[in-house]
């Protein structure tokens, strides 16, 4: 099939503002959006800039706005977003500074991540073997630990767009993973962080995050669970 790939371009050394460029590409319905964007870079305009690595949805590098929705370019097949002769659009994810073309400044996103103490805390001496945990308790971390930090959720959140100091859904998902880990000993500190004015109460349950997540994490539900834990001061 033949499709048009319309990309929002920006070169910080040349352009004063973003502008659209359209490229014609021959592709197969089963191709990934990343494949056609790579094709543009490799054979049409090598200056096109974006992040990518694993190309199968596990590294979280290539989050972008495809046809107006946050997705991973490597996990979106053409057949799901465009017909023969049609057009797909690709824009940088929103709410983070655009550095060049589809590449944004990820530092604020990782700052929010780092602010929630994203690491296991338990200072009691560890046993010689593993700490025991029931399969049911382990399952409570299933969704939270599935996150790949791609930023699809946070950059689809209207609250984050308006107020960048909100830590955003991805950071709360990470916090959830530790708050609901029965082995972790810092629940209280974690709940205090979530209770700050940059924390969980900013969420207005717009559900954009849940819809955007390429790993099908029920993010809004996890945020609600964290809110309840803060309210009742227990996980």
């Amino acid at each position, binding site marked *: 099939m033949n499709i048009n790939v319309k990309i929002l371009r920006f070169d910080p050394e040349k352009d004063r503002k973003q502008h659209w460029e359209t490229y014609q590409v021959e592709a197969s319905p089963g191709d990934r959006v990343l494949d056609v964007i790579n094709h543009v870079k490799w054979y049409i305009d090598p200056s096109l800039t974006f992040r990518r690595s694993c190309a*199968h949805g*596990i590294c979280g*590098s290539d989050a972008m706005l495809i046809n107006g929705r946050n997705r991973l370019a490597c996990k979106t*097949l053409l057949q799901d977003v465009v017909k023969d002769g049609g057009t797909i659009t690709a824009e940088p994810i929103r709410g983070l500074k655009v550095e060049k073309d589809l590449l944004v400044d990820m530092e604020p996103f990782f700052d929010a991540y780092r602010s929630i103490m994203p*690491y*296991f805390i338990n200072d009691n001496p560890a046993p010689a073997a593993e700490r025991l945990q029931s399969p049911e308790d382990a399952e409570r971390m*299933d969704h939270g630990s599935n996150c790949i930090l791609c930023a699809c959720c946070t950059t689809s959140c209207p609250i984050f767009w308006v107020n960048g100091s909100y830590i955003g859904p991805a950071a709360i998902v990470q916090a959830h*993973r530790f708050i609901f880990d029965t082995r972790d000993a810092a629940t209280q500190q974690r709940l205090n962080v979530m209770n700050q004015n940059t924390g969980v109460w900013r969420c207005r349950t717009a559900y954009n995050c849940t819809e955007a997540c390429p790993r099908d994490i029920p993010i809004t539900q996890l945020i609600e669970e964290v809110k309840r834990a803060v309210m009742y001061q227990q996980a």
Partner: protein
Amino acid sequence: MHHRYDVLVVGAGGAGLMAALYAAKGNVSVACISKLYPTRSHTGAAQGGVGAALGNVAEDHWEWHMYDTIKGGDYLTDQDAAEIFAKDVIEAVYELEHMGLPFSRTEEGKIAQRKFGGHTREFGKAAVERSCYAKDRTGHMILQTLYQQNVKEGTTFFNEFHVLDLIIENGRCSGVVAYELSTGEIHTFHAKAVILAAGGYGRIFKITSNALTLTGDLMSIYYRKGLPLEDMEFYQFHPTGLTKLGILVTEGIRGEGGILRNKDGERFMERYAPTLKDLAPRDIVSRSIYTEIREGRGVGPDKDAVNIDLTHLPRDVIENKLSEITDLSRTYLGLDPVKDLVPIQPTAHYAMGGIPTTIDGECIADDNGTLIEGLYAAGEQACVSLHGANRLGTNSLGDLIVFGRRSGINAAKYARGTELAEMPENPEVESRALIENLKNADGSENAARIRKELQETMMNNVGIFRNGPDMEKQVEILRELRARYQHVNVQDPSQRFNSELVEALELGFMLDCAEAMTHSALNRTESRGAHDREDFHTRDDVNWLKHTMAYKDFSQPGNVRIGYKPVVFKDAADGEYESLTTYTPAEAAGFKFPPKPRTF
């Protein structure tokens, strides 16, 4: 810009993050350079688990794991490395658990374990549950957990920095030169010790499970200095990649009971490996699949795949324990493993070879075992050699944590006892020249086209089945591609985020890795592990029980000089380790694990 650290780690996957963590515990200043953001590293793509003889599900012993690793490696494994590994990986897995890694659990609350290819009880009697797993995203959990711990320890990260050169003078490494993607600036990192842990180079093949960023940068940089790459001919094709795409389908699906079937629905592995069947080591399963395809029993439009069958497994096993791969086959093939057969084909997956190191991670400079002071390597980048001629499934994650940790500890120890070595006056001169050449070339060639040709020809001529004439042809193809590479020109003039420049640099690194691999494979006139010669079909212990050391021969572009390094064996009588220089059956009889014909 100029930076100074006691220990500098290059690469932020499992090995690099483990090394950084342990170096930091050694009271030295540590920084970690990555060409990605750390959580993007390809360790995250590992699915099935990390093998360790915990015995949580069935009786197990580290000796059995050691033996399986050696036999899986077709006796090219250095046995001292295998012993350290099989013992240490048990403690290392507990340590990951203590760092909070969310492992799947047994009913008693212990770390869950499942079967995996080549892992057996009682020295090959039957498959054993040894793979410790977190659903089918174990690598993702290891990467996340180790990054989290580094955040906790306050490790300094330089993200999206591309290393262009190692600074080595008079047998001592004093740092690296790196290109900062966001500014185009060249940085020099002055360090007492440098640890290389930047992963493999699967992108030299057309069908691969590897990330687009796995281009062998640091192996190539090492090789360009006239230093050796060990056992480059041994490259693992994972049996099960999603057809056409090469995306990894975990061996855990066979560990959980998945069955490979040809077009007739036959469970063909019963013919090739009567005891372990679908759970034979990867080299054997991949060759069996290709044999089925060659003999006309493949599936799919091009008859170039076989099916993996999970339809007899309970839905909750597939959706819960194998959720990642269920998602991948639904997303990319529109197939649901609960009710559909999923077509797979072997995919280029893992380099057994790489930068030669000692069991303490120290880099080796020549056939005599001379060390480069202050330089360490770990993970897929390194060749310890734990994996010999073929790596067992799960042993890559085990390798990362065991030898990442060892190199971190040893680098910190070395750094504590030494001063910064003097740097040459303009250490970045060659790196600047590398970039200038790419910006000023005549531009008659396109990097992407050369890369595509490299990937297709390597797949055809140096893939699963190899022979002399095809590889000789590939040697000439590589010379031609190298000559054409000189004409590649970077058109994007920008300083900031010049990803075109980066891709062009990476192509140069890939050409080196392909060259070292092809020459090493052409030179080894036997079949062993993942290296299968149609013209030399058997293993030849008398002549080839030795490691290959490939050196760039600067007399002419594209030339390679081959040297050798002995294999380490354990003596059965005194338990001491000895380097095997010449093989005789009498001497081999005295080994604890002597080379034997490999049946499964």
